């Protein structure tokens, strides 16, 4: 299974000789390497050596976790920043060329087992003196992500098994997220298996401005490509995904039989919630602190309403029912009346009518963006609660084959779903104070069986419910400095090793650690550029002030006449920049 023998020594495709094993390291899977070359190997680099495992030569991959200078110019030569240490060395006749030696620490990841389709631990460290090479680019492309390369995939036309020969970009269903940060741009592309994270959920965690939304945009683009045609539903509380519509008309998104991704936007007017869809728990969470007696009354009334044929009842009908049950002058029902009218009846979000049918909302090849930037947090949570519940029921029904069941009159969605949440901690808060938490927990723990994946984006991992976060099988983690949030990641992200966590504070926007079910080992990547514009760039204030000022200067009298309304005033149009 050797993927680079002597023949690859001359090829430029990785495989560069970088150092020699000096001896075992601190842990059972660690060893030390000595290298003369400062440039060749950085922390995080993947290196390889050959060992015989059960009679077969195997290329074991190891990750460099630490690098320190073993020999070099003495620090006293650096006493004056104005004097180069090399100058001092030259004066003293100390050779400066090729004298530096570096000591690297590396951790064995394993050799890629084409049977198990992941890394296997060789259970033996390389002998001191073993020569190490950088792992070849193409081999890493095939083995780092969990894309299930098997022996047949790796077999060359000549019949050998060579992992570097696998043509990863040609495989379907992969998301090209970016490339390994340690190698040249584009040298080792990282293709993440969409099936994996769509089934076992995804978390994108990073401080504000580190590139979470941008990366989510990249993944959504990948999921809308012709070889995937996903059904995406985005809960967008900031209006950051308005630019995704640019996918339409771009060649890269066009597929056979005229496929083009659909991008549908739903604003609050289309997102109304039918009151009869609410559960008693939802209603409780909407009302301010109902007393025990009020809860009991509401429970009784709500149950009675849910027994009814009609699904279009509202607060009025509910109140009639409760007054009937508990008497016209029941003070608790009276108190409830006031609360129900204020919180539900007078909130435009709730309606008695039929709400948007799910099949209008989601479809394969469609990215549905729920624009919730004008809604309150509580309303956003309510929409998520009710929609997720309906979608989950519809998936459940489809998987259980209930479309032919005469007793089932609910909705059916016969394709998997992937739903993305900006401000994920808002919908699944660690405090538990959100009606949406319970359905989010259900989907993250059960959704895998029903083809319902969630993507949780958050800048405050410590504020996300730990059950939900720990169920996110794939993690994209970007720059995080807050120690509480780092701890949250350590606790809930199984695959996040110490060496990976150490990287987090130092990342720059667009750099990410990808770990979990979608990867065979965590990797540090540079996220690729988006095909569509990024919609979340902050407004360049000084530029907008300048142009606005100029506009105002050019129309000194408009400000008065604009208020007159009607007529043919073109002022408004000009203000919108449409002249």
């Amino acid at each position, binding site marked *: 299974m050797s993927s680079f023998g002597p023949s690859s020594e001359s090829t430029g495709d990785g495989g560069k000789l970088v150092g020699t094993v000096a001896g075992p390291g601190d842990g059972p899977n660690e060893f030390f390497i000595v290298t003369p070359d400062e440039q060749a190997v950085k922390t995080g680099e993947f290196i390889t050596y050959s060992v015989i495992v059960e009679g077969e030569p195997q290329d074991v991959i190891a990750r460099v976790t630490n690098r320190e200078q073993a020999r070099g110019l003495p620090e*006293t*030569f650096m006493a004056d920043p104005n004097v180069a240490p090399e100058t001092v060395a030259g004066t003293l*006749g100390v050779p400066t060329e090729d004298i530096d030696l570096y000591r690297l620490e590396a951790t064995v990841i394993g050799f890629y087992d084409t049977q198990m389709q992941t890394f296997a631990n060789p259970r033996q460290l390389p002998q001191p003196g073993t020569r190490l090479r950088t792992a070849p680019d193409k081999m890493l492309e095939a083995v780092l992500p969990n894309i299930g390369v098997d022996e047949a995939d790796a077999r060359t036309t000549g019949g050998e098994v060579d992992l570097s020969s696998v043509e990863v970009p040609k495989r379907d269903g992969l998301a090209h997220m970016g490339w390994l940060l340690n190698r040249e741009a584009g040298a080792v592309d990282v293709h993440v298996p969409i099936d994996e994270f769509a089934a076992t959920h995804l978390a994108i965690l990073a401080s504000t401005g580190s590139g979470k939304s941008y990366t989510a945009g990249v993944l959504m683009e990948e999921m809308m490509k012709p070889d995937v045609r996903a059904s995406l539903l985005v809960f967008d509380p900031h209006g950051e995904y308005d630019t995704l519509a640019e996918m339409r008309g771009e060649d890269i998104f066009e597929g056979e039989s005229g496929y083009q991704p659909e991008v549908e936007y739903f604003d609050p007017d289309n997102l109304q919630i039918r009151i009869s869809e609410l559960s008693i728990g939802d209603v409780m969470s909407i009302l301010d602190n109902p007393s025990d007696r009020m809860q009991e009354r509401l429970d009784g009334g709500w149950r009675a309403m849910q027994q009814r044929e009609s699904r279009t009842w509202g607060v009025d009908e509910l109140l009639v029912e409760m007054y009937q049950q508990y008497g016209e002058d029941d003070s608790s029902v009276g108190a409830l009346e006031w609360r129900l009218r204020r919180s539900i009846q007078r909130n435009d979000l709730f309606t008695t009518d039929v709400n948007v049918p799910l099949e209008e909302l989601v479809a394969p090849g469609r990215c549905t963006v729920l624009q919730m930037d004008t809604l309150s947090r509580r309303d956003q949570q309510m929409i998520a609660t009710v929609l997720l519940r309906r979608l989950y029921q519809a998936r459940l029904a489809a998987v259980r084959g209930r479309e032919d069941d005469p007793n089932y009159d609910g909705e059916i969605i016969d394709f998997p779903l992937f739903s993305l949440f900006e401000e994920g901690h808002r919908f699944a808060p660690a405090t538990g104070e959100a009606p949406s938490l319970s359905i989010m927990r259900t989907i993250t723990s059960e959704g895998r069986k029903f083809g319902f994946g969630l993507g949780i984006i958050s800048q405050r991992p410590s504020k996300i419910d730990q059950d939900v976060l720990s169920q996110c099988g794939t993690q994209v983690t970007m720059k995080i400095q807050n120690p509480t949030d780092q701890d949250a990641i350590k606790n809930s992200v199984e695959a996040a090793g110490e060496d990976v966590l150490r990287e987090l504070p130092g990342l720059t926007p667009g750099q990410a650690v990808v770990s979990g079910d979608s990867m065979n080992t965590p990797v540090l990547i540079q996220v690729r550029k988006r095909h569509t514009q990024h919609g979340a760039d902050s407004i360049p204030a000084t530029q907008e002030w300048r142009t606005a000022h100029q506009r105002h200067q050019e129309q000194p009298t408009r400000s008065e006449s604009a208020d007159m309304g009607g007529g043919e005033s073109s002022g408004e149009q000009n203000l919108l920049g449409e002249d």
Partner: protein
Amino acid sequence: MSNTSPSDQSDSQTTRITDCLAIGSIVSSNSHMDYTVEIFNETDRERAPGPAECEFGQPVFIHKTIQDTEHVIVGVIYDTHLVDPDQGRSGPRLAQGDQKQFTPGYVEERTKLAGVALLGTAEVAADGSIENPSHQMPRWTLDVEDIVERCPDGVTRAFHTGTDGGILIAYMERLLDLAGSLGAEVMLVLLDRLRESFPTDEHQRVLDVIEKDVRWQSSVDRGVMR
């Protein structure tokens, strides 16, 4: 081996090795790099070196022709010894009273000995200046009675100038090693002398760093710093 008094004494800035003050002759060696020199006195020379001319840290050279090429072997005085043959009659006292010339092994009177550590070599150009300084260990052995001359500052400067115009002190580690407890001190005196010869800012900074290094190392060796 001229017995005439050097004409050029006052001009320590000369860059030529001709007519330099002879300060002594070699009497023995302790190693390939470490020689003992008996300093001339009035009975040896008309113009004997004064105390300042053979002081601790004074660069010296031995002029030798090797394989048809004229060379200087450069060294530095890193130690001195006084020998008094009358003191307890412990010293060697084999010289005859009428023997005018100093004879090695025969010490007739009070004598000043200097330890000279070799620093390197250079070639002598036709005009008497030196070129191609090398701070490698000299391969040749010096001989007893070889004359040791005082190295003028100009020659010292040339000996310490690298091909790129930078200062060259490549013998430092060897000197520190050889001179033992006095190594740091002799190095600091040499650095002081080099400061005079290399006045530009750029050179002074390099000398600063090296001086700190020497002081730091000797402090560490003496256990007062780590």
